[in-house]
């Protein structure tokens, strides 16, 4: 083959990066065991993505870009792909939250039964004052969510993993007191 100038010109390559070197991997020890226990349940690694993201969120409280990259690397998915999935689902948090996250349903069936007042009471008594903002003491974040599927027991809230039904403004401070 005839030649020209010699050294091949690079055609450009896909840049990859996992993030700053101080990222502590999530999938070690017990978390790694939980991840590996998922593999036999699905025919593809990609299908393990949602449960893997749950493991991250349970370990760290939220899912950072570095964690997304780590999940991607472990399952053979690009960081962009993982991010597209994380941002689709409301329950995966992309920012650090308070120590306790309170999800309050305000959809019509609950609104009909006083959800607005429950929400107002929660915002006040947690000190959050605004939706999505963590209280000054870092204890609570209150978010508004859509129908929680407990419409017959208005107003339901999901406080961390505790599904608490029939919340009224009067019950709020008592409930909050259980979450230091």
């Amino acid at each position, binding site marked *: 083959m005839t*030649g020209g100038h010699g050294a091949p*010109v690079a*055609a*450009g*390559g*896909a840049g990859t990066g996992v993030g700053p070197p101080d990222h502590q991997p999530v999938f070690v020890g017990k978390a790694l065991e939980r991840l590996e226990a998922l593999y036999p349940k699905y025919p593809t690694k990609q299908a393990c993505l949602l449960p893997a993201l749950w493991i991250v969120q349970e370990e760290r409280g939220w899912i950072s870009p570095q964690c997304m990259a780590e999940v991607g690397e472990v399952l053979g*998915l690009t*960081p*962009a792909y993982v*991010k597209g999935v994380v941002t689709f689902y409301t329950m995966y948090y992309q920012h650090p939250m308070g120590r306790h996250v309170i999800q309050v349903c305000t959809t019509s069936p609950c609104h009909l039964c006083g959800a607005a007042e429950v929400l107002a009471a929660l915002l006040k008594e947690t000190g959050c004052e605004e939706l999505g903002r963590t209280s000054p003491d870092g204890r609570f974040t209150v978010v508004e969510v859509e129908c929680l599927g407990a419409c017959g027991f208005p107003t339901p809230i999901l406080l961390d993993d505790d599904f608490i039904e029939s919340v009224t403004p009067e019950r709020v401070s008592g409930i909050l007191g259980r979450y230091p």
Partner: protein
Amino acid sequence: MTTELVNVTIDDVPVAVPKGTTIIEAAKQAGILVPHYCYHPSLPSPALCRMCLVEVEKAPKLMPACVTTVAEGQVVRVQSPAALKAREGVLELLLINHPLDCPICDQAGECELQDYVFQEGRAGTRYAEYAKRFNPVEDFGPDILYVPNRCILCTRCVRFMEDVAETPVLNVSERGDRAYIGIAEAQLLDHPWAGNVVDLCPVGSLISKDFLHKARAWDLDKTASVCPSCSQGCNIMIETRDEVVVRLRPRPNLEVNRHFMCDHGRMNYRWMNRGDRVEAPLVRQDGKTQATDWETALDRLAELLRASDGTVVVLASGRASTEALGWVRRLLGDRRVSAAVQVPLGEEAPLAGIPGLALRPERAPNADGARLAGYTADWDAAVGAAPGAPLTLLLDPDLTDEEVAVVRKSRVVVALATVDDDRLSGIDLVLPVATMVEENGTYVNRDLRVQRFMQAGPAPGMARPAWWVAAEAWARLRDGRAVPGSAAEAYDALGSDMPALAGLGYDDLGLTGRTLETAAAGSAR
């Protein structure tokens, strides 16, 4: 094997198409364009923009033409009131958040949102009092900017990167009307074929930094051509404004590059606009170099050739047209010749989802054309043969300083040159020739496909196509034979020298080329 044909009627036009054809493709055969955004023949179809909904007799709902296959006897209406109303609705909804950026948007004039709104949209918006969603412009990487406000979420870019480039670096982020095209912070859009997302984007949401605010679409002249940057031979359009090349874009060819071209080829157009050109023939006589007319120059070339005895060295650019290469070779007739073509090498970059499509290591568009024309010497050997050779003929190669020094030791040096090269000053003869942008011609790609490129602008000064220079000199050496009057004639005449081309006339090539019969071509590799 016969394909089963299905008969359908689209807006009263009957067509027969193979079973399994979608309505949108069948409509093309009927000469009817079904307006659409997310559909693209080289991408998987998600049917999500809902623009292509058409009325199908007996179907209870409007059907998406991009994924609905034809059925025997189907009657389709693209312009029915229901379909028009639905499209009007989609357009109105797309415009509620889409900013009125036309005056500052590069896509204006070639924007599918503008086109369909003008054609079928409402005259005014009813979304007057509400705030439009606003997100800042994002830099996606080397050449691409993303303007989220203009995005209509057709997801062509996401599907291209995921399914064609097989590198999912773009996603849809968020949900509902908060959705936008996202990229992970860790990964840029620097894939070697990423520039295609700008072409795919129907609006001005993904735009090229290189082209940013450079020219208005309606000021552009567009010419069908072939990419000169590697041996793949992607079909392109050369787009010029006032005869300056401002952009290269892919042109569809289902056999070669489908709808795509790589970034290397796309960005490699600045050389086409070089101003430092040889504008007149330069003859060296009696120790002086002097500009002269073509008659004098061509006479001089013939004279130099008659006087040379021994192996002539020919060093050709890999961008030279088949016509130029063939006629230079023919010019040298039966003499001994050491003819080499320059083929720079680079890294291959395939487009994974399309077998047979890649940025090729051979960074020259006509290496195979040159080989077929007899340019089979090793480059370095040919250069090495120049010192003391009776004549070295340069067909616009890109020489290093060392190579120039070596070549100048040839007894006679003749250069058919585009660029005015100081290092060649004082050689016997410099003949100004056109670049591939400034002439018609053909290239033979790595699959032995002969493809035409068309003239996209005038050659500067007195520059002429290299095949014409060689043919004129050849005619002088043979007592005034008739010379070809066009690239087509130049090509067709070569059939006797290059048996591989025989039987494949210029007029057979069309705009998408034809492959040579591989048996006739022999092994050119």
